[in-house]
């Protein structure tokens, strides 16, 4: 249940080729996150899997069955939309039972399953409300409820949290993770949020312009990004890149070092620079250090807690040597 295979799938809208041939395997029970810049084709890919768009060529199979030609209703997948897409004219109960009604289940069975789902999602008290009377987080749970009652082969989430405020996002993130742990159903999740991708995924798929740049576990991508793009995309604040002489010293065209792997000191260190903007979060401080001889961009340094360094100070930075990433001229990792 829930193994999804894409073979040589392509998609064009008119003349625009959005997805070049793409292969992907998603194992049963996996939590896969798609990330990539805006417009790279994440949603399109999800919609191809869902059957909401036709593939231009290639094959999709779900659980070993060819699904390329199946209409969405027949694929046995459930989707949670960014906007939740709840039925505004139905009560929460009706919303959740809608897929069951469509499947022709009898009323008693419908009720049983709805109650069960509501319990899991803490929605029991809200079953008779309309979506318009719910808070954002509750709505999201209804959307998930509608998806889980059916016991689908897989869940598809398209940026489900992007409409929520920061506090709710954190909560919902935890809830979805727990849901995955308890249901053990395949989940495909699109997000542009670093933290979500890193904390939720079993496997992250990094996309750029419809291409898969790298597939791997979050920490794998964090530690061993295959190329400059992935290195820059994964991690926040983003990795600092240094080219030229300093990179050559490491036998690379470019080297990368994450802000959290740089230590800063007023007295001594490898690279010298001047402090530009510094951002004090209390828990951390992000310092933007201008080191003109290394790179034109400021180098971001993260240091814990509060540091006694100010705008204009001259400082020295020292990278942790084993955390330096090296890339060749084509931007590929050298390991």
């Amino acid at each position, binding site marked *: 249940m829930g193994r999804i295979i894409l073979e040589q799938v392509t998609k064009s809208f008119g003349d625009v080729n959005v997805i070049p041939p793409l292969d992907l395997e998603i194992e049963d029970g996996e939590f896969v996150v798609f990330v990539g810049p805006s417009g790279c084709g994440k949603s399109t890919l999800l919609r191809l899997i869902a059957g909401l768009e036709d593939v231009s060529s290639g094959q999709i199979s779900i659980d070993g069955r060819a699904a390329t030609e199946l209409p969405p*209703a027949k694929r046995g997948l459930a989707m949670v939309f960014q906007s939740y897409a709840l*039925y505004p004219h139905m009560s929460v109960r009706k919303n959740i039972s809608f897929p069951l009604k*469509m499947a022709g289940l009898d009323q008693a069975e419908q009720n049983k399953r709805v109650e069960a789902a509501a319990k899991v999602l803490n929605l029991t008290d809200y079953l008779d409300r309309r979506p318009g009377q719910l808070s954002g987080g509750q709505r999201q749970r209804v959307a998930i409820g509608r998806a889980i009652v059916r016991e689908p082969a897989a869940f598809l989430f398209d940026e489900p949290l992007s409409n929520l405020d920061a506090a709710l996002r954190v909560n919902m993130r935890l809830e979805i993770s727990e849901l995955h742990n308890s249901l053990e159903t395949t989940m495909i999740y699109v997000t542009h949020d670093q933290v979500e991708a890193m904390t939720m995924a079993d496997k992250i798929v990094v996309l750029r312009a419809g291409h898969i740049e790298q597939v791997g576990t979050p920490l794998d991508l964090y530690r061993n990004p295959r190329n400059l793009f992935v290195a820059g995309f994964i991690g926040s604040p983003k990795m600092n890149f240094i080219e030229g002489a300093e990179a050559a010293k490491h036998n690379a065209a470019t080297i990368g070092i994450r802000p959290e792997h740089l230590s800063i000191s007023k007295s001594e260190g490898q690279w010298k620079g001047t402090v530009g903007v510094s951002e004090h979060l209390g828990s951390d401080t992000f310092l933007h250090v201008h080191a003109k001889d290394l790179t034109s961009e400021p180098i971001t340094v993260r240091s814990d807690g509060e540091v006694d360094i100010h705008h204009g100070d001259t400082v020295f930075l020292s990278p942790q040597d084993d955390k330096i990433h090296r890339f060749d001229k084509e931007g590929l990792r050298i390991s």
Partner: protein
Amino acid sequence: MARAVTPARKATVTVFAWGVGLLIFFPILWTILTSFKTEAEAIASPPSFVGFDWTLENYSTVMERSNYFLHFLNSVVISVGSTLIGLLVAIPAAWSMAFVPGKRTKDVLMWMLSTKMLPPVGVLIPIYLIFRDTGLLDTRTGLVIVLTLINLPIIVWMLYTYFKEIPVDILEAARMDGASLRAEIIYVLTPMAVPGIASTLLLNIILAWNEAFWTLNLTAANAAPLTAFIASYSSPEGLFYAKLSAASTMAIAPILIMGWFSQKQLVRGLTFGAVK
């Protein structure tokens, strides 16, 4: 702009708005008043506003003379019938245009609207001949067909604009939930578009209710609606203003009352639809 409105300003606006409202409504008010006058008072000069002998005579004459309820019933059947059938045909069409737009969608829409521009007098004879040969003359069915056809473009167009405002996501969600096309339209689209559909319905009932050319020319005794009822009071030889006013009041009363009750719906639907 939640700044406090001073009572003085509100009072000024109130007086002004009521003034304008009454001015616009005045012809109707006058008609209603006239319907309670005698024919002689109706043309009296100077005209009297309320200081006349109120009489129900005109109403009783009108009720005696013609079968108001038959006409009324015909009007209801014809306007509601044609609007409902129109909706039945228009909803799927509007669905197609709003949710699966193609290159030609706009052209089709515009073409539909342009069929509305056919001047009825130009095609009366052909239609009359067709109706004669199909036995549709003076039948409600015939009128329902004609009115459905002439109002269909407007219905499609209004629904289209309403549907455009509905997020596609929700229909897609229904599809993911295993709904067939029919289920999608019946359970999801239609209920969501209720305000829009309701105002389309109302607007078209009004248009059909007031349609006078076809309803007059294609009916005789059995299917004649209120427009024919009115036509039997306008300008005979002899004074008729009071009786006409009574008849007019009776003809517009149902739609006015309906309008009154559905005012909110009408305003809301139109906001939601015709204008983003």
